[in-house]
């Protein structure tokens, strides 16, 4: 598929800020099944963007703004060619061995409710791959996925207690479960294209998990949709959990509070129709 992505983020501050520093993980890289045709980040104020690659292999851009800052508008636009690889991820830039992704983090630490979930799943027969598919479905069934991103970044324990959440929360649960079950698992930030025109505009990027399956390597699992990512998906950043792969991590110097508006549109490129 040829997908067009438009991701707008707008910060409003109730008081002017003296300084804003943001770390953007909003640039995807090409790999097998995902070819970045065009990608750009525009900032609608006088800002310096410095690009580099972090230890996870993510392309990061640092945004430094001197005050007074009352608002920031960020617009990411891109065009990506995708192929359905049944979730298999290969050729993605990951400088780290899978063993890195075995550790629990503060957000993905094991808890009683998670162990219950795994226990219910213990009877599952078959090889590692079918076992993980089963886990993915089990997480999907836990609660319906909210379209809005959860306001707070919550731990797996908190998510399982609340029994509600967004794709980020579901990805965290699946990652924690996979790690507790002995598989390296990582968090992925990206975009998803929906054929239903009513679903075209969303208020958040999409989040899912990738799990290192013996004999297969890294495979994507999207517990929000109980499936493996196909050509509707564009992967952008990865890490141990949301904190490593968040589209934007920011800090500001100044009073008041910030109001955040996000708009994500993923559509088919016109060229696709003409083809």
């Amino acid at each position: 598929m040829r997908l067009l992505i438009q991701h707008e983020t707008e910060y409003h501050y109730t008081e002017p800020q003296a300084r804003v520093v943001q770390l953007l993980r909003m640039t995807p890289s090409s790999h097998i099944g995902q070819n970045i045709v065009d990608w750009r980040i525009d900032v609608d104020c006088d800002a310096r963007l410095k690009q580099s690659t972090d230890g996870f292999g993510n392309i990061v851009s640092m945004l430094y703004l001197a005050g007074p800052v009352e608002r920031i508008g960020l617009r990411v636009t891109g065009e990506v060619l995708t192929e359905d690889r049944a979730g298999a991820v290969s050729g993605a830039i990951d400088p780290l061995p899978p063993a890195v992704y075995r550790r629990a983090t503060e957000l993905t630490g094991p808890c009683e409710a998670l162990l219950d979930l795994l226990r219910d799943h213990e009877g599952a027969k078959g090889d590692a791959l079918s076992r993980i598919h089963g886990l993915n479905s089990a997480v999907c069934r836990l609660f319906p996925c909210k379209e809005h991103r959860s306001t707070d970044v919550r731990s797996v324990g908190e998510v399982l207690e609340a029994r509600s959440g967004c794709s980020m929360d579901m990805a965290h649960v699946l990652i924690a479960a996979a790690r507790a079950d002995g598989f390296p698992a990582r968090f992925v930030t990206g975009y998803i294209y929906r054929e239903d025109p009513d679903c075209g505009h969303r208020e958040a990027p999409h989040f899912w998990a990738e799990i290192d399956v013996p004999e297969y390597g890294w495979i994507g699992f999207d517990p929000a949709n109980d499936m493996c990512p196909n050509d509707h998906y564009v992967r952008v950043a990865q890490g141990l959990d949301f904190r490593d792969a968040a589209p934007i991590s920011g800090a500001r110097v100044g009073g008041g509070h910030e109001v955040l508006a996000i708009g994500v549109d993923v559509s088919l490129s016109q060229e696709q129709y003409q083809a």
Partner: protein
Amino acid sequence: MAGADAFDEIRGKPGDPVGRPEFAQLLDWMETTPPAELDRRQKAAEAAFRQLGITFAVYGEEESAERIIPFDIVPRIFTAREWASLSEGLVQRVEAINAFLADIYGPRRILADGVLPEELVLANPQFRPVLAGAKPPHGVFAHICGIDLVRTGPDEFWVLEDNARTPSGVSYMLENREAMLRLCPELFEQFDVAPIDSYPDALLETLQSVSPRGRGADATCVLLTPGHFNSAFYEHSFLADSMGIELVEAADLEVDDDKVWMRTIEGRVQVDVIYRRIDDDYLDPLVFRPDSLLGVPGIVAAYMAGNVALVNAPGTGIADDKAIYSYMPEIVKYYSGGDAKLPNVETYRCREPQALRYTLDNLDKLVVKLVDGSGGYGMLVGPTATRAQIEEFRAALIAEPHRYIAQPTLALSTVPTLTEKGIAPRHVDFRPFVLSGGKGVTITPGGLTRVALREGSLVVNSSQGGGTKDSLILTGQEERA
């Protein structure tokens, strides 16, 4: 719990009629100076420390009370020969620590070669994957190491712990010497003691040597403190003062264009080297703890871009992790090509079946520790444990052997110490400070000696009745008669 047969560093082995003749003058001094006079001097030193405000915990213990760590007036002495051999071992060890850090944040050859289990490093919370690929100036990660040593005999030194994060306590080394020079000048006439007052200069030179822009003595170095509420604030301000560099808090710094700037009244100045006394977790809210108010947003980006040196580099905690410690002899050998000159305390990794069997057979003689435990939790001291405690550990070891290591109970050396009942032997350990910069390794001839003030105690921690002593290193010039 100490054996009565411990080696005494001044009197020699128990029952040894000759003792250690090179220190006869110190024995004379202890015998001829009236205990009341020693006590007076010791109290004078402690009063001075209290006035200075040296009231912090040495090893990261949470001590809320504003109290000073007791000072003992009787110094400890090392001969020039002992120091030379210790120094060689320390240089080798710290060079290996830096080579190890450069390797695991770089090509990870040691893991590919199977010297230690990959997962022990990569899945360890002290390994910071986001920093993989970092190339700090001159490849130095751990610029300041405080290596904790214990001694069991004339030439038997053992490394107990490598402190490669932000080791503290060097201000004690310097202040203890100041006090001794003032209160016991006669000792420095009798012995040729190597001076240690050059430590702040050596530290400053180390900082300047890793400045990414070079600039030598013109490099802008700062000391970043969490603030005056921090228990080690005295040391932060003392060191910044002694080096003549700015003491800053996070709010004094900002990152712009992947460079770190310090706000001053004359405008902003680019910072080359930051001696940071803030833990990794709090250093940069954009990549570590997002709720940290102590850190500088963007400082990790500046570090990764090579525009600022962080001393010590973030992520060095992996080198002094308990799980890694037992592999240090292999790590030293891997990078130095030779056997470790300073041995580890023998450590049985219970994850290995043979070690587990030995441990289970000797629980009453060993110290068993949880690999990921701290503060004495999950620890069995065999010789003093009850039958029930031993059986409890036996069950835990069988259930989860990979979580435990075991070590022999060491007979730590003693040094004469002023007690309520006069001078008596007390157990000690030793922390020298090793500096690594662009021009190699420097060790100031001294260190921090901690002493377990309670009779028979092996626990030197200040929270459990530990104190400090001055540590004299002789220069090796002919002893004066």
